[in-house]
């Protein structure tokens, strides 16, 4: 029998209506389980309910209905016990700037009641792991963004949690730091820590997660390994850039003509306009390209570029949610209080 470190059953969180608004069902009946040692993730756009789910699991928010256990403990009834078994790294880095890196780690370790000797060894180990040993005695206020991220992650690990909750952990990192941070996360997971990650970066979910759930509007839309999910889309994508004069009308005309021409072609799963041309979904890109070129190049149309790619998680998202994941929304209410 597989040991489940996180189990969530029909979780619902309704936020009361803001002035003149409707109540918001941030989490709308979510169920899932994370096995011990697994790297599990939620992939979805902002406002999908990812953060709310993590906040409930980390005992920071109460669910409206449904049940959740972490390490076999109920997150409401046994909240205190849950807190000593989880590590938490949220979207915004939460550190004390006027303490040194070492002091930040020691503070959290002491709050977890770790004995002084063990804590010192653990802090040394984490500073080494996160490549922060040289900066350990400097005030955190002087740290770079990447260093702050790594130290924040270290504070979540001091007490050797059974499960690590990561809410958009690489938000605001440059690509290089992000890649380095991913390495850390993989290493931590390999060392035995169960991971639950939320992200709206497809590459991040693809790269890190053993298994993931795509969430949208408070619900799990589909769940599986990244491979399974991508295969379920069943199509490769072919991006075709079309020759056109300056101006939107010329492009639109070319796109419309191209789509009509493809209407009768066999093996095409989907076709839609994209920036600068059209995007075509086909069962097998390598086999389909010659036919596509025959149809589209000539007779008043011109192909100026062509790229093929295997399905990405964005295609998966598009397939199951009917839109792209990158539709950013200003979903955070301004928190002025008054």
């Amino acid at each position, binding site marked *: 029998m597989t040991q489940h470190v996180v189990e969530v059953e029909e979780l619902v969180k309704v936020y009361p209506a803001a002035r003149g608004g409707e109540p918001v069902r941030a989490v709308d009946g979510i169920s899932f389980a994370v096995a011990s040692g697994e790297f599990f993730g939620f992939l979805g756009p902002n406002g999908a309910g990812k953060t709310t789910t993590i*906040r409930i699991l*980390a*005992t*920071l928010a109460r669910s409206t209905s449904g049940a959740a256990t972490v390490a076999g403990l109920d997150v409401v009834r046994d909240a*205190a*016990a849950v*807190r*000593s078994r*989880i590590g*938490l790294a*949220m*979207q*915004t*880095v*939460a*550190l*004390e700037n*006027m*303490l040194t890196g070492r*002091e930040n780690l020691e*503070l*959290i370790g*002491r*709050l*977890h*009641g770790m004995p002084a000797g063990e804590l010192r060894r653990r802090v040394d180990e984490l500073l080494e792991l996160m490549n922060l040993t040289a900066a350990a005695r400097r*005030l955190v206020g002087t740290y770079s963004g990447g260093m702050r991220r790594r130290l924040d992650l270290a*504070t979540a690990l001091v007490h050797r949690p059974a499960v690590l909750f990561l809410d958009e952990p690489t938000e605001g990192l440059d690509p290089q730091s992000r890649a380095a941070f991913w390495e850390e996360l993989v290493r931590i997971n390999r060392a035995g820590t169960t991971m639950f990650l939320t992200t709206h970066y497809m590459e991040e979910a693809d790269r890190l997660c053993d298994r993931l759930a795509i969430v949208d509007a408070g619900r799990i839309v589909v769940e599986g390994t990244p491979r399974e999910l991508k295969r379920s889309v069943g199509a490769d994508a072919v991006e075709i850039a079309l020759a056109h004069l300056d101006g939107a009308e010329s492009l639109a005309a070319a796109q419309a003509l191209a789509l009509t021409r493809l209407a009768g072609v066999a093996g095409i799963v989907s076709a839609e306009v994209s920036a600068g041309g059209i995007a075509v979904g086909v069962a097998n890109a390598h086999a389909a390209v010659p036919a596509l070129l025959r149809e589209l190049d000539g007779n008043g149309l011109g192909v100026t570029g062509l790229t093929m790619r295997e399905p990405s998680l964005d295609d998966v998202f598009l397939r199951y949610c009917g839109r792209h994941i990158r539709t950013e929304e200003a979903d955070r209410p301004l*928190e*002025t*209080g*008054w």
Partner: protein
Amino acid sequence: MTAAVGFLRETWILGGRSLRRFYRVPANPVSTLLFPLIQLFVFSQLFKDIVSLPGFVASGNGSGSYLDYLAPGQVAFTVFFAVAWSGSTLLVDWRNGYLDKLRASPINRLAILAGELVPLFMVSMAMAAAILILAVLLGAHVATGLPGALAIVLLGGGFGVAWAGTSMFPALVTRNEQATGTLAMLFMPIAFMSTAFVPVALMPGWLQTVNDWNPISYVIEAMRSLMTVGFEGDVIGRALVAVLILGVVLQGATLWAFRRLTA
């Protein structure tokens, strides 16, 4: 029992953090002290002859030196300034997620609030002591000697913790640093209308009535009594009651707002 020990331990750990956060920015202690020091120095010169006004010495508490009169008022004033921004640190923690990090730790959540009060108590006492020492250097005289000076400092610490609620409560309710700052300004008149600078006997009638209800005046009167008269049980008792009521009301409101914020 173990819960209480745990609470004190966590309060101590978090208090250590808050204290470092305060003194590791030298501008904090320096600016907190500088304004009251300048005020003490200038006012003691400026109003030196106010003691010769009829009724000043007769109003009690008069050693005949305005510096002796002013110093205790200035001590209370300093503490008043020292805690005027105390709510903003909670707001910073709330905004950057540090409060969540602490709440997700296996600690008593009230230790988070108590951990803010420990350094406020220490800082208030340190500030009170610094002003008192400077006053003595300028020539002031503490009638009750060192024990009385200690009592003044302790009273300052207690007042600081209680009064901090005037910043912490608005901070937690408005969740806005600027509003917290401007609301703190609203409390300024209470300090200015107190007996810090002028004895109540020299005030117009309506201001005398106001001072019957001004908790700061009770604190100042007790400090002044220790400074210029001696250990007067009833005056000190009234100050303790004033601090206690202030503490229960203001920190009670803060506690309510804190629970609401972290519910």
